[in-house]
C-alpha cells in the first residue's frame, strides 16, 4: 500500500477508522461500565486512594483559612428543609427538646441537648467544603470535637465505624453517613452548630452537622439526630455505608 500523505484512499480509510474506533470505544466503555467484574477492577482505585491517603496523611490536618477567604455565600446542597414532622416540631421550638443520641458499641450511651453540646469545649475552624460535583465553599464552623463525645461514651471493643443518622430523606431514603475511626477521632472532625459566627442555618444542616474536613461534601451529614458506633456497615440500609453510596454508587471513602 502506498504510504504517502495525500493518498485519498488512505485518508478516507483513516477517517473511517477514526470514526468507527470512536463509536466502538464509546459503546465498549458503556458495556464495560455495566460489567460487575470490570467495575470491581475499577473500584481498586478507591481502595488504593484510601490506603494511600491513610499512609501519607493519617493525622494530617485539613487546610485552614483566614476570615477574608470565607465565601460570600455558603452554598447549601441536598436537603435544604427536612420535611419530617418531628424535625418541623424541633424547628418550631428552636431545637429546645432536640437530643443527640450517641449509642451502639459504647459503654455509656449519651443523650445531649443542644445546650450540652454548646457547653463542651468548642473548636472553631475556617475550612473549605468540596462538593463531589466540583465546587468549593469556605466557611467558619464551630462545635465540639466528635472525639470528645466518643471518649465520653467510651467505644467498646469491635467498634470500627461511626454512623450518623439524619432528619432528612432524599428520594424516600433516610440520609445517613459513616466514617472510620481515623476520621472520627481526627481533631478537625466536629459537630458544627455554628456557621460563620451564627447559629447553623436550616439549609446548612441545623441544629448540628458533621464536619469531616478531609472528605467530600456528601460525607458531612446534616440534621444529625443520632450517632452510632458499629462494627460493620454491610447490614445497614443498602450496605454501602451512606445514602448516596447506596443510591448512586458514590465512593464510601470520599477523600479524593
Amino acid at each position, binding site marked *: *500500500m502506498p*504510504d*504517502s*500523505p*495525500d493518498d485519498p484512499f*488512505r485518508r478516507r480509510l*483513516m477517517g473511517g477508522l477514526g470514526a468507527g474506533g*470512536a*463509536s466502538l*470505544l*464509546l459503546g465498549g*466503555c*458503556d458495556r464495560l*461500565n455495566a460489567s460487575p467484574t470490570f*467495575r470491581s*477492577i*475499577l*473500584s*481498586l*482505585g*478507591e481502595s*488504593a*486512594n484510601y490506603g494511600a*491517603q491513610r499512609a*501519607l*496523611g493519617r493525622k*494530617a*490536618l*485539613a*487546610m485552614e*483559612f483566614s476570615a477574608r*477567604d470565607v*465565601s*460570600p*455565600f455558603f*452554598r447549601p446542597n441536598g436537603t435544604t428543609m427536612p420535611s419530617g414532622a418531628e424535625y418541623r416540631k424541633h424547628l418550631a421550638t428552636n431545637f429546645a427538646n432536640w437530643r443527640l443520641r450517641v449509642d451502639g458499641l459504647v459503654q455509656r450511651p449519651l443523650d445531649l441537648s443542644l445546650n450540652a453540646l454548646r457547653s463542651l469545649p468548642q473548636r472553631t475552624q475556617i475550612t*473549605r467544603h*468540596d*462538593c*463531589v*460535583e*466540583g*465546587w*468549593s*465553599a*469556605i466557611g467558619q464552623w464551630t462545635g465540639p470535637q466528635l472525639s470528645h463525645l466518643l471518649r465520653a461514651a467510651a467505644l467498646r471493643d469491635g467498634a470500627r465505624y461511626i454512623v450518623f443518622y439524619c432528619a432528612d430523606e432524599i428520594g424516600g431514603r433516610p440520609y445517613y453517613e459513616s466514617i472510620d475511626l481515623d476520621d472520627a477521632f481526627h481533631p478537625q472532625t466536629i459537630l458544627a452548630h455554628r456557621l460563620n459566627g451564627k447559629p447553623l442555618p436550616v439549609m446548612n444542616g441545623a441544629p448540628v452537622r458533621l464536619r469531616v*474536613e*478531609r*472528605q*467530600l461534601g456528601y460525607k458531612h451529614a446534616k440534621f444529625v439526630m443520632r450517632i452510632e458506633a458499629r462494627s460493620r456497615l454491610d447490614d445497614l440500609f443498602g450496605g454501602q455505608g451512606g445514602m448516596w453510596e447506596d443510591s*448512586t*454508587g*458514590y*465512593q464510601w471513602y*470520599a*477523600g*479524593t
Partner: protein
Amino acid sequence: MATVADDEPEFQTPPAVGRRKIFRHRISTRLWHWVNVIAFFMMVMSGLMIFNAHPRLYWGKYGANFDHAWLEISSHDQKGFLRIGSKTFETTGVLGISGKQGVQSRPTAFPGWATIPSNYNLADGRLWHLFFAWVLAIGLIAYLLVSIWNRHLQDEVAPTREELKPGHLWQDIKDHARLHFPTGEAASRYNILQKLSYGAVLLVLLPLMVLTGLCMSPGADPWLPWLVDILGGRQSARSIHFITMWVLLGFFLVHIAMVILAGPINEIGSMITGRYAIKPERSPSAETDDAGQP
C-alpha cells in the same frame, strides 16, 4: 520481556546507505506509549463527565454557583452556550444541549459521545477517573525513572545547545510547515520540535495533570497544602487541570497529524516493534519527494 535490543541505545547510528531499519523505540517507550493511549482517553472522557456535574470554572480557593465563574457551559431557552470571561458562544448541539433532547433528564455540558459513561453518572465517571488516574500516574513515574536510568531523557529527549539556537529552531519550524520530514541520519533521532513537545508532555503537562488532580482531593490537601497554595487554591487547580487537558488534547491532534503525514505505517509500526525505517539522505533532485515516502 527484555530483548537484546533493549540494552542498546535507543538510536543507533546506522551506515548511511539506502532505506534501512533502525532500532528506535525501547520497550519502555513503547509500553508507556500504549498504556497512555488508553489511560489518557479514559481520563479525558471520564473527566468530562465529572466536569458535567458542575460545568463552571473559577480562580481562587473557593467557587460555587453564586461566585463568579470565568468559564461556564450551560443552556438557556433550549440554546446551549459556552461563556469564557465576558464572551458567549452559542454551542447548541455540542455544548450545553446535545443528543437526545427530551430523553436526557438534563441538558448536559459535554455531549454523551465525549463522556464515560455516555449517560450522566457522576459516580461512574469518578469510578473510571480515579482508577485510570493510578494507571497514568504510576506509568508516568515509572517511565520517568526508567528514562533517567537508561539516559533516554538526557541523551534523546533533552535538546542540545546547538538545537536551541533560534536559527535551528526556525529552520525546523519551516521544515515542519513544508512537511519536509528529516531523512537519513537526521531521521534517526528526534528533531528539536519533537524533543520540545515530548519533553513538555513528559515533564510539564502530565505531571501538572497529576498534581492539579491531587490538589482537588480533600484527602490529599492536608499533606500537600503547599502545592495547593502554589497553584492558587483548589478551584484554580481545577481550572488548570481543565486547561492542561486541552493542551494535551492539542498535542494529541498535532501528534496524530504528524504520524499520518510522516507515514503512519512506519510510525505506528515502530511504536509496536521498535524498528523504524529511515529514508536515505534527501538529494537535491529529491527535494519534492513526499515526506515520509519510504
